[in-house]
């Protein structure tokens, strides 16, 4: 086996591992969300399929696959078929740049647990999250339904607005780490996690990612009760499933990124690095579910007010303060 083949094999193995783990986690996140929400509401949740209901994701999958794949007759055919993929693919692509564990020794070589260590990793994530808008926008527009269109217009405005505060809240971490490479950002947090230096940036990032993955306090694009189901009103079967699973992959990915940027990535005592990363990511997922069980939905104007008049100026001030602080530390 030559070096090149070995390299390619290891890369493919990593990609396959990420696909398998992330998709399974996403499916089980749906289940965990239903159970946790049920407990919060003093119910029991799905517990009939398999022991403790653990086979529920499989049952959901079979149900979605066997449902009728309906397309509204007035819909724009190709965009209607394309939009769910556009929503799900950027979410899972982002995982390419996240380091999910310390480098391991495998077959006599150092293998970093990361698919691609781009030197612009952080910007890569920003780019993909700005691309994720298209799934929402085109899906809603192509359905040719008024609810879907309203949902997608709301989604467009929301995603673009919160992307800005999300990007700005990440600038201080870049300033502290001195690199856009995610592995170096993680390496810079070996001693002290960035959440200690940057609690404000962390709070802004947390709110922004909740808005980015359209979770409940910010689920204006799909507000049931106002817009039926928002931008995916007209979708059924596995196409709806793609939107759905994309949303949950997004939760995992954004939780992983929050871990990487603020909670020290895979650093942690005693346990293996991979376990630490998964545990921190799942803690974020749990927090999102918990928030969903607690908070009511914001109004559209409140959302815009929060994004543009509170989070973005705060993030800018935070960048300025971080700059001054770094300069003073440099001078001393």
């Amino acid at each position: 086996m030559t070096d090149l083949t070995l390299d390619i094999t290891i890369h493919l193995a990593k990609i396959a591992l990420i696909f398998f783990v992330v998709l399974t986690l996403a499916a089980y996140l749906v289940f965990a969300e239903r159970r946790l929400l049920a407990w919060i509401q003093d119910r029991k949740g799905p517990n009939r399929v398999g022991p403790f209901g653990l086979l529920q994701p499989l049952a959901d999958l079979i149900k979605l696959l066997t449902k009728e794949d309906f397309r509204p007759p007035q819909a724009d055919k190709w965009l209607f078929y394309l939009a769910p993929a556009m929503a799900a693919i950027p979410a899972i692509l982002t995982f390419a740049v996240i380091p999910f564990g310390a480098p391991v020794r495998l077959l006599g070589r150092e293998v970093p647990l990361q698919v691609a260590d781009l030197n612009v990793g952080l910007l890569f994530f920003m780019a993909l999250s700005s691309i994720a808008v298209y799934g929402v926008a085109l899906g809603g527009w192509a359905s040719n339904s008024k609810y879907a269109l309203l949902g997608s217009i709301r989604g467009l405005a929301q995603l673009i607005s919160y992307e800005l505060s999300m990007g700005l809240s990440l600038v201080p971490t870049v300033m502290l780490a001195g690199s856009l490479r995610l592995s170096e950002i993680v390496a810079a947090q070996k001693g002290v996690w960035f959440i200690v230096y940057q609690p404000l940036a962390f709070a802004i990032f947390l709110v922004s990612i909740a808005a980015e993955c359209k979770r409940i306090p910010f689920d204006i694009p799909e507000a049931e009760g106002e817009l039926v189901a928002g931008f995916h009103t007209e979708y059924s079967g596995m196409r709806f499933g793609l939107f759905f699973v994309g949303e949950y992959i997004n939760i995992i990915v954004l939780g992983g990124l929050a871990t990487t940027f603020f909670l020290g990535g895979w650093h942690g005592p005693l346990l293996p690095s991979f376990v630490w990363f998964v545990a921190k990511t799942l803690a974020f997922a749990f927090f999102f579910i918990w928030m969903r069980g607690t908070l009511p939905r914001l109004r559209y104007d409140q959302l815009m007010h929060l994004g543009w008049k509170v989070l973005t100026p705060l993030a800018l001030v935070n960048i300025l303060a971080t700059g001054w602080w770094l300069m003073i530390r440099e001078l001393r």
Partner: protein
Amino acid sequence: MEPAIFYILAAVTVIATLFAIAEKHAVHAIVYLVTSFFALSVIFFMLGAPVVAVFEVIIYAGAIMVLFLFVIMMLDLGHPERARLPGGRDWWPALVLGAVTLAAALTLFVSRGPAASAAGKAIGVKEFALALFGKYGVAVEVISLQLLFALVGALYLGKRRNDRGEGGRRLGEGQSLLREERHP
């Protein structure tokens, strides 16, 4: 192998752009154009400009085209049957001008021939940032001022004035647009 990828991406870019400008449906045109920008961004990456490549996706595909999409969706312009197609007299000057530009490009290609390419090194993020904020610091300031002016201008244009009949009734439309404009 890398040149082959470059030519494939170049073909994708040109074909997608061609489809985009031949499409009478504005939303489809934007989707084609986003495809073209993606291919172009990979070309940028291969030309050793990762930052520009990523910003191409963030700003062009993720913000400007989304802004177009937003305006089209908001003003309900996505009806090709209502749009007026360009007449025959519009085609001739366009084709002549395009042909002239194309001929100039091809002349360049033919006259010099593929010269030996200089081994340009890839430009890292740090070098790029030093050039941007050091050598061209004034340009950054000017651009930021320009963005501010654009913001104020868009705010002024988007404002509904109350002296025109229906003013103030459909407030949300103008407001949400304004909020979009600040993003790039």
